[in-house]
């Protein structure tokens, strides 16, 4: 327990440093973006029929939500805000706290990503075991190659293909938006059903995008474990197949937890594509919007949130890992 606590403390310390660094980086990147959002806003208003001067004034009010002062002052202000979980105000949302806007969007990213990951994790692991066992046969080959292929194909290609096939050519599933409005939000069959229906394609894309990785990782992990002496030893002791299978599975899955965290990162990164294709109002879309709108605070916030969730996922995966690996639990360093 002490070891785990220490590990946790170490991770947290490193995580916090990481977050601060990322926050700093994003702060400066975001502020070095060229372009004049004020002029763009003015032009937009002018096109909508507003007078030049009025447009300028309106824009000035809107962009008043941007922090003022020297870059350094802004930075210290931003960092001290960060400690209070205050990420500033969003311009496009007329001064709404960035944290609130992010909170709205986060659920539309986190849930599908989690469901998709879980789904592909389960299926991928099973198929990975199968591919490992049949690795010298045709089927194993096909599984492995298709796994590599799926692992290799970028998410947007998968998303586009799925959307083209299931939402356009054979329109059996909704391909944009997260839910149908006419259902009263809440715990009722219609609303939940609509949510689920709309989530199918994005979740499927997330799942397919990570599935290949699982198959490959699980396969190689199983192959490694199969080569471990203790499996042969168990066989030579006449252990039941089912028990040996459990040994293999548990030992093979263990290293996958690290990959789980990494894949979460990958998926969260890919959310931009999937959400754009399926018009899912999650963090990715928010980030994209904030970039085109030059909503600096929101942009930095979205970027930070995505990164932080990856850091947290890493920590969780590691803790989970240490909870089930006795070697780590007792403080022994496990290589690989």
């Amino acid at each position, binding site marked *: 327990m002490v070891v785990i606590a220490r590990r946790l403390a170490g991770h947290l310390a490193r995580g916090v440093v990481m977050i601060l660094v990322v926050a700093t980086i994003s702060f400066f990147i975001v502020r070095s973006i060229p372009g004049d959002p004020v002029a763009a806003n003015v032009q937009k208003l002018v096109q909508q029929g507003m007078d030049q001067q009025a447009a300028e004034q309106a824009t000035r009010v809107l962009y008043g939500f941007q922090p003022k002062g020297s870059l350094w002052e802004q930075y210290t202000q931003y960092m001290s805000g960060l400690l209070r979980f205050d990420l500033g105000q969003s311009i496009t949302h007329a001064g709404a706290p960035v944290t609130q806007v992010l909170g709205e969007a986060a659920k539309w990213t986190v849930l599908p990503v989690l469901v998709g990951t879980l789904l592909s994790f389960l299926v991928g692991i099973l198929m990975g075991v199968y591919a490992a066992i049949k690795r010298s046969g045709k089927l194993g080959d096909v599984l492995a190659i298709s796994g590599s292929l799926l692992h290799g194909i970028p998410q947007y290609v998968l998303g586009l293909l799925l959307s083209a096939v299931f939402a356009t050519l054979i329109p059996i599933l909704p391909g944009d938006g997260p839910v149908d409005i006419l259902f009263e939000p809440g715990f009722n069959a219609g609303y939940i059903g609509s949510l689920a229906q709309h989530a199918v394609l994005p979740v499927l894309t997330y799942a397919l995008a990570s599935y290949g990785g699982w198959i490959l990782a699980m396969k190689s992990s199983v192959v490694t474990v199969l080569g*471990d*002496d*203790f499996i*042969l*030893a*168990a*066989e*030579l*002791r*006449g*252990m*039941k*197949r089912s*028990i040996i299978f459990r*040994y293999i599975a*548990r*030992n093979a899955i*263990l290293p996958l937890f690290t990959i789980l965290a990494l894949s979460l990162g990958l998926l969260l990164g890919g959310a931009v594509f999937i959400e754009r294709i399926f018009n899912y109002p999650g963090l990715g879309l928010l980030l994209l919007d904030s970039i085109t709108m030059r909503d600096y605070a929101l942009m930095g916030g979205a970027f930070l949130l995505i990164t932080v969730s990856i850091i947290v996922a890493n920590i969780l995966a590691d803790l989970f890992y240490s909870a*089930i*690996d*006795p*070697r780590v639990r*007792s403080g*022994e360093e496990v290589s690989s």
Partner: protein
Amino acid sequence: MAQQAPGVRIDGLTVVYKTPAGELPAVRDITLTLEPGTITGIVGESGSGKSTMALSLLNAVQPPGRISAGSVEIDGLGDVVGLKGEDLRKARGKHIGYVFQAAQNSLNPLKTVGKQLLDLGRSHGVEDLRGLVREAKELLGRMGLDGARVLDSHQHELSGGMRQRVGIMLALVLNAHLVVLDEPTTALDMITQANILKIVREVHAERGLTTLVITHDIGVVAEVADRLAVMYGGRLVEQGPTREVLGSPRHPYTRGLIQAIPRLVGDIDEARALPGRPPTLATVPKQGCVFRERCALRMDVCDTVDPLPQADQGADGSRVVACHAVTANVKEHA
């Protein structure tokens, strides 16, 4: 099935491995009898086929290898080569205990020894799991370990010597009377090795086992075995009672091997290395004597004809040698 030390008769055993160059024999036409209640030692250099033979005793040669000919008759089990599926699985562990070459890593790193013991019990339909644990503790205690603590430990919490002892415990706990130990002391230091060998000897005697010890270290065999068999290039070149074989080796390889042992006392110039190098699966001659390349007594016939094992009966049991030169010599004398 409460049986006592079973006898084992290996007859014409050949094991081949599939390689890009075709199927090559790692063990070729070996005939060997393990008398009930004895400790037999097999020595041979790396790659001579020792482990392969040991695995054949459990019909557990791993792909791409397979037993291509011969039989392994074990009292109370019959021909193991013919066993399949559940029968084979049940025989392993319950009838034949196997202590793994790399016993260091023969335990599941994620489970405690005790849990693995229970898994073993369940696999073999042991009803009285408490009894099994008691038995295991007793065995461990017998080997100088604190049974309760060991059963609660994970592999990484045990030292090499302790792991090896746990391996022996797991091989014996189901009351197997035939035990195969593949390199039981490799990678252990001298003092631990001495302890393990002592344990092997004592347990063997106490439980009335038939034991097969496989090693590349003649010293180990000399220390524990009643009978000694020498393997070279997948062939059994000589076997007989340990003292006799060590005291008066007949096969030129055995002689060379014994001569090559560094000695603690005596004239150091007596010892010398064997010229040449041991064969590998690919370089072992396909026909004729496998040792001829390094043999001082090489004759023309060695190139073409496999020397047949010739047996004679000595005071402590039979001695077998497979060498044209030795046979010829004997004939000459006769």
